[in-house]
Every structure is written in C-alpha cells, then in structure tokens.
C-alpha cells in the first residue's frame, strides 16, 4: 500500500508540471477530425459583429489556406506533390505510403498553411491526406472539406498573436488580440487585449518567412519575403509595415492580397517604357532599329516575386 501511495505521489509530481504547462499554453483536447478542428477554430460568430471584416477575409487566400485559389485548389495539389515527391521518396521520413503521413509530416506545409494542425491528432492528418487525394481525383466534396480549414480570425488574433511567449505570455484562450485592451462581448472570447505585434510586420513574418524553416526535421522553404523585407527594405531605411500596404493603402482591409489583386499590382510596381526608332550607322552600313528601354521599379517593401 505504501508503495502504491509513493507511486501515486510520483505520478502526481510528474503530472503537475505537465498540467501547469498545458494551462499556460492553453492546450486543450486535440481534434480528431477535420470537423472537430474546424469547430475548435470556428469564426462564424465573429461575423455577427464584424461582418465587413469577415466578408473581406472570406475573399482572401487566408480563408482557403489548405485548399488554395478557388479556381485551382493549387495548395491542395502541392500537398499531394509534397507527399509523393518528398515524403514518400525520402528514405528516413517514415512515409512509404500516403497512409503513413502524420501531423509532423504535414507541418512542412502546415506550419504556415494550417498552424492549428498542431492542435490535432494524426487522424486529422490522415483525413487531410485522404481529402487531398480525393480532391485531385475530382471529388468536389473533398474540396469543400479542405476549405473548412484556414487561417482565420483566431489564428492571427489569438493563436499566433503572441510570438515572444516568454516575454509577453501565452495567448489566453478567452482573449482576442487587437489594437486595445477592454471587454469583448462574445461568450467564448470575453477579453479584448492589445496584441504586442498586431500592427507589426513580424506578425506576418511568422509565415511569410525568412527562408528554410530550420526548426523542422526536414526544412522546407516556401516564402523568403520577410527576409527580403528585413535585409533589403528595412536595412535601406524602409519603415512601412506589411499591414500599411496590404490592408490600408490598398483599401482591401482583411482581404489581404498579393499578385492576384489589381490594387496590389498598381501599388507594387511602376512600369515605364520608351521606344526610340533610329538609323544606326556603322561605317557605310546603315541599320534601322528601335531601341526599347524598359524600367521596372519595385515599390514594395519586399522582393518581387517571392519564392
């Protein structure tokens, strides 16, 4: 009996730090299905008070971050390529067939396309894989299922709103991080907190990245945008933030766009051409020609294009 009590005590001692950590980090039960994960990150109630913002966001690629552009579903297709040409080809990935794919494997893409996948079990990873394969085989319901997962209000205004967690604390489960402190009249998110980086480029830089993601077992590199922003824009004295152009100057608000949007195209690049027709003389030889001078100015705070 005494041995049993000691065992219980040791078990408790081991559990308490885990429970405290879980409480600090706001960890909850993990989602076991796409529907459960979508429910955990359901933002339909945000629309009740923030309809304009919600509708703007719904037009953005953030709203279909796993599926990709409405017309092509290119992101989902690239997930499949990653499984076939990457995971299944790499001898040490542990993936021999699509059924072997787990959350840790999908994080190569999900780090940015669906960071909340970390709040899900491998069952969800498997469901995503099945739907990706079904979508590429023409199953529209699979596409709809994938479109339930996205970068939404709760990702930027809660889950990923705090980057320096040791300095600023872990995101509170019942808080929405925005521009000021106060009350937030929503049952599940009753607090409004001033987000330390909500207006800063680093908020976007979490995903629109620096290059290889070295924290991954097998680094991937999708975006290098924040790298060029830091080292080629701010390094030259640039002071604007991503939000200044992509939300405010463009007038697009939460419909944050890039190369697909006419507004962003106009803001991003100045294009000027001059043509000079003339005869060029080389000794006795005369050559009629047109000299075309093209000037392209990148007005953005990052390189164009990204990649």
């Amino acid at each position, binding site marked *: 009996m005494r041995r049993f009590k000691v065992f219980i005590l040791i078990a408790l001692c081991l559990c308490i730090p885990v429970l405290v950590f879980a409480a600090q980090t706001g960890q909850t039960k993990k989602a076991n299905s796409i529907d459960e994960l979508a429910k955990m990150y359901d933002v339909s109630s945000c629309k009740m008070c923030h309809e304009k913002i919600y509708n703007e966001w719904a037009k953005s690629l953030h709203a279909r971050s796993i599926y990709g*552009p409405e*017309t*092509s579903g*290119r992101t989902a297709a*690239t997930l499949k*390529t*990653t499984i076939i*040409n*990457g*995971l299944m080809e790499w001898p040490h990935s542990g993936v021999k067939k699509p059924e072997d794919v787990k959350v840790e494997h999908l994080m*190569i*893409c999900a780090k940015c396309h669906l960071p909340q996948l970390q709040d899900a079990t491998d069952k969800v990873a498997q469901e995503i894989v099945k739907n990706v394969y079904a979508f590429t085989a023409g199953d529209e319901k699979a596409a709809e299922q994938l479109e339930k997962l996205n970068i939404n209000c709760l990702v930027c205004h809660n889950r990923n709103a705090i980057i320096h967690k040791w300095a600023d604390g872990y995101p509170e489960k019942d808080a929405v991080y925005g521009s000021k402190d106060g009350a937030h009249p929503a049952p599940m998110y009753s607090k409004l907190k001033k987000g330390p980086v909500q207006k800063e480029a680093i908020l976007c830089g979490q995903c629109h990245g620096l*290059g*290889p993601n070295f924290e991954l077992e*097998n*680094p*991937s*590199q*999708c975006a*290098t945008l924040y790298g*060029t*922003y830091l080292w*080629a*824009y701010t390094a*030259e004295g*640039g002071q604007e933030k991503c939000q200044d152009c992509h939300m405010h100057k463009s007038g697009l608000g939460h419909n944050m766009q890039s*190369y*697909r949007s006419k507004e962003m*195209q106009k803001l*991003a*690049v*100045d*294009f000027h*051409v001059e*043509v000079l*027709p*003339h*005869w060029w003389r080389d000794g006795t030889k005369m*050559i*009629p*020609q*047109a*000299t*075309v*001078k*093209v*000037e*392209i*100015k*990148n*007005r*953005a*705070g*990052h*390189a*164009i*294009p*990204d*990649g």
Partner: protein
Amino acid sequence: MTGKTKDGKEIFKQSKIYMPIPQQNGRGDRMGRGPYEKSGMLRDTSIPPHKTVHETFDIAFPMEDVKRGDKIEKVIKSGEMTVDVELWYLPYGNKQQDPFLWHKYTKDVKVTTTGK
C-alpha cells in the same frame, strides 16, 4: 517583349525572368521546385524592394536585298513596327496556369525610309 511588322509578322521576341532561384536541399547546383525541397538560394533575379531594373533591347527593322544595277543593296523592307512590352506574373512559371498580366505597353513606331 515582341516587335512586329505591320502585317503582324513577329521579327523580335525576348523575355527576361525575375525570380529567386532556390537551391535543392541547400546543396549542389540543382534548382528546387517544390517548397518541400527548397532550402537555399542558387541565385536571385527577383526585383529587390525599392529598386529599379533597367532593360534595353535593340530591334532591327527587317531588311531585304534589292538589285540596283550590278549591285545588290540592303534596303529597309518596312519602316514601321509595333512594339509590345508585357510584364507578367506567372506563379506557376507558365501562361497556362493562373497567369497575371500586370502591365502592357504598345507603341507603333516608324523610321524614315528616305535620306542618306
């Protein structure tokens, strides 16, 4: 960019590509294609922030051989040309998938056809 004569015949075509050229797994001389295999940069021809790139193209008007007496002379075939310059954003590297035309410039130009 292209140069075309009045009858629509293309007499000049050239393109420039601006993009980061990622390195496969951060080693060697191969470019990586998918994000899962990119981990470095072989070269970068993308347009840096707040920088201007300048390109110059010289397009020759078409000439033809004409016999004048005993001599064969090169003379201008057409003194008119249409110059088209287009700036495309091709997220998938081709014009078949989601191409975006950002800017387009067209101008009809002429050179004199008489004089010495």
